């Protein structure tokens, strides 16, 4: 448990002076995500430890190198959890990496994403300054929301040092129900249920079965179960963990893996490949060897965007191409934080 802010700050200042670029690295569990980044590795794992945890305040502040598992264990001791159920993708996953990648798990459509729970961030910008945005309170509208801007920016705007999060109590009970349904029918059904006051907390469809997780008080789950029918899935915790961590059998193939983000009720897409649905249909995993432009056009026509999540041409365009106007603003923001372009060059988009 130690504060390495100033060591890291000096490393950044040296890099600015020596005109070298930096590739920020944590545990390395999500090194596959995005484009490969140029630059000298800047390890942040030594900047580690929980700075403040106040269970009755529902607030936790920790350094970027703190292990996700470590944080989740401490929260679990108090009956609390990270509400966005982040994927780890490895035992070495850190909080900083989870926030920089901005990936959320099965609970996302019901309780929110990483960015929804980030209350404050302390970081080093590309001028070597240590900045502090937001704080440890839930409501805060002073200044631009620079903390949330850093979520999912893949370290291209600065080195995240400390993160303050809102946390939530863990539901008293969870059960998972399964239904034999074809994909189209499953999407319809789950979106109808999501429009009524049911205690849903996760959904998925693997091509044959719809899986529905419910969370809440035992009495609320009992009432919902009577209403929803279905079969109870044994060892459900394992199922959602495997899905979240891409250990599910669907992910054990060699073809490129795409993540599609779509309006949830969008019917199954007319493109070849195997598809696994999550988030009421809003997040879809597609295994296919199809050309990127076909996938991107099909998804964009339906108001979505596509990410080449794993495999394929990692040097190419990984995230959905931006419109010229969006590209300009993204570039301007990058330079506003990192004027010498030293942080994770090219990781998000080529030239960003």
């Amino acid at each position, binding site marked *: 448990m130690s504060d390495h802010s100033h060591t890291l700050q000096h490393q950044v200042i040296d890099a600015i002076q020596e005109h070298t670029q930096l590739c920020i690295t944590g545990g390395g569990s999500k090194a596959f995500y995005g484009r490969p980044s140029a630059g000298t590795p800047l390890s942040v794992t030594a900047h580690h430890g929980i700075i403040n945890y*106040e*269970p*009755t*305040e*529902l607030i936790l502040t920790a350094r970027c190198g703190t292990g996700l598992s470590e944080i989740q264990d401490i929260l679990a001791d108090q009956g609390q959890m990270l509400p966005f159920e982040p994927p780890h993708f490895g035992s070495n996953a850190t909080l900083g990496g989870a926030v920089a990648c901005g990936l959320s798990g099965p609970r*996302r*459509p019901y309780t*929110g*994403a990483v960015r929804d729970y980030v209350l404050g961030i302390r970081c080093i*910008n590309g001028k070597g*300054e240590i*900045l*502090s*945005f937001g*704080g*440890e*309170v*839930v*409501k*805060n*509208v*002073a*200044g*631009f*929301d*620079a903390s949330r*801007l850093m*979520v*999912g*920016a893949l370290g291209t705007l600065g080195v995240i040092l400390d993160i303050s999060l809102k946390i939530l*109590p863990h539901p*008293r009970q969870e059960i998972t129900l399964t239904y034999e349904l074809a994909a189209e029918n499953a999407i319809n059904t789950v*979106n109808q249920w*999501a*429009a*009524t*006051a049911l205690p849903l907390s996760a959904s998925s469809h693997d091509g044959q079965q719809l899986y529905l997780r419910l969370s*809440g*008080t035992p*009495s*609320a789950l*009992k*009432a*919902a179960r009577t209403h929803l029918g279905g079969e109870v899935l044994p060892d459900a915790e394992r199922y959602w963990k495997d899905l979240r961590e891409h250990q599910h059998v669907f992910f054990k193939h060699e073809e490129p893996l795409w993540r599609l*983000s779509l*309006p949830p009720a969008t019917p199954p897409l007319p493109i070849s490949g195997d598809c696994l649905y999550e*988030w009421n249909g809003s997040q879809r995993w597609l295994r296919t060897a199809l050309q990127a432009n076909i996938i991107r056009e099909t998804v964009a026509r339906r108001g979505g*965007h596509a990410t080449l999540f794993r495999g394929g041409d990692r040097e190419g365009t990984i995230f*959905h191409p*931006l*419109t010229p*106007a*969006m590209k*300009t*603003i*993204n570039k*301007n*923001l990058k330079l*506003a*934080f990192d004027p010498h372009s030293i942080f994770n060059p090219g990781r998000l988009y080529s030239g960003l």
Partner: protein
Amino acid sequence: MEIELDPQPALNKAGLVTALLEHLPAHSVLHHDEELRPYECDGLSAYRQCPLVVCLPDSLNQIQAIMRLSHEWQIPLVARGAGTGLSGGALPLENGILLCLAKLKRILDIDPHNRTARVEPGVRNIAISEAVAHHGLYYAPDPSSQIACTIGGNVAENSGGVHCLKYGLTVHNILGLKVLTITGDVLEIGGQTLDSAGYDLLALMTGSEGLLGIIVEITVKLLPKPERVQVILAAFTRIEDAASAVGDIIGAGIIPAGLEFMDNAAIRAAEDYIHAGYPRDAAAILLCEIDGGKTEIEEHSRQIEKIFQNNHADEIKHAANESEQQRLWAGRKAAFPAVGRISPDYYCMDGTIPRHRLTEVLKQITAWSTEYQLPVANVFHAGDGNLHPLILYDANKPGELERVEEFGGKILELCVHVGGTITGEHGVGMEKLNQMCVQFGKHELSQFHLIKDAFDSDNLLNPGKAVPTLHRCAEFGAMHVHGGKMPFPNLERF
């Protein structure tokens, strides 16, 4: 109140009006003094300034034309919705155009299956929930001005409301924005998906107080209406007990939909006005709303009652039916106007603090209230530590407003000192520029200016608001304190 701007060349007002009239009908361009007067302030009426002209466009093309002129002529542009903001964010600039978006009030699309609505910025907050009610859906954020305030203004301010403890702020409840930049680009941010490619501009635009772009379309997330709602009132003899009950409820793993606090001054004012049935002698009351399924509510009600008892509540009242729930809420919702009845003027503060510092902060406010001889009524969102001390005063008494501002400034600085923030939901606007110098250091403020530059390098959109210049902070002399702890001995002055 002086507004800091770079010196502007003398403006040809007649020429500007003529140019605007090429794109807008005559009734949409107000430029005579008597037409401008109603727009001289927003909900913070202590600050007043007539703009050069007011534009009331009713289409995207008209907005684009106004923005093009603003850019070409280098005339500042201040956006305004219903003008209910409480921090002077929509205060006009003497040499600027006031862009009033209230005419853009069409609900463009309701998609019950994807649970979204796409609306224009001038749509009133409550009109969205009304329009989707027959689908069993609603839009969750409910600022107390919701019958009047616009969704565009809500996004610009990242508005909250009594239910944001459970359902979040505006930033958690919108999915997409269409934004016009001052350089004439259209930014399509997000949509009906839960995320989008590139930086999270949706988060950055939310709460940006009209400094980065003009929001012309919003896609909001709709939620299913809860099956049931229960409201519980608890009265306490000691403020400490009420504060500790708040922590205990959250600590028990219950997230109420709303958890509101009123002190004795607020209770009396509300009770005299609304007759909600509040105990007039209580030092504090808590109003706790929980929602969910029938059995879940019964379970939580029992738990909460026990917590109130353990914290020495003198009286616990469960609303027996919907009309009683509404009566209990009516007192809280009318608390501001109720205070308005007992004092010629009041000044509403908006700091947020960590919940466990509640008692000490309230005690300090009481001590200052005595020192300044200005009564204070406290009514606020206890669940998320968002304070709204109302300082009672009389603007007609010479020097009283200045004392109020000094007192209010101290409260906000105290909020920062205990680890909180100067504004939870009302925004910085014109009002809290000095306190921004207390909350942030020069590097953060410089970074904010750079973000502004990334969108609006000519500083034309709502200039002088939300983020103070470093020069102003140097004059205010507050940058020696940052986050209540870090000294800044080598303050740059320029």
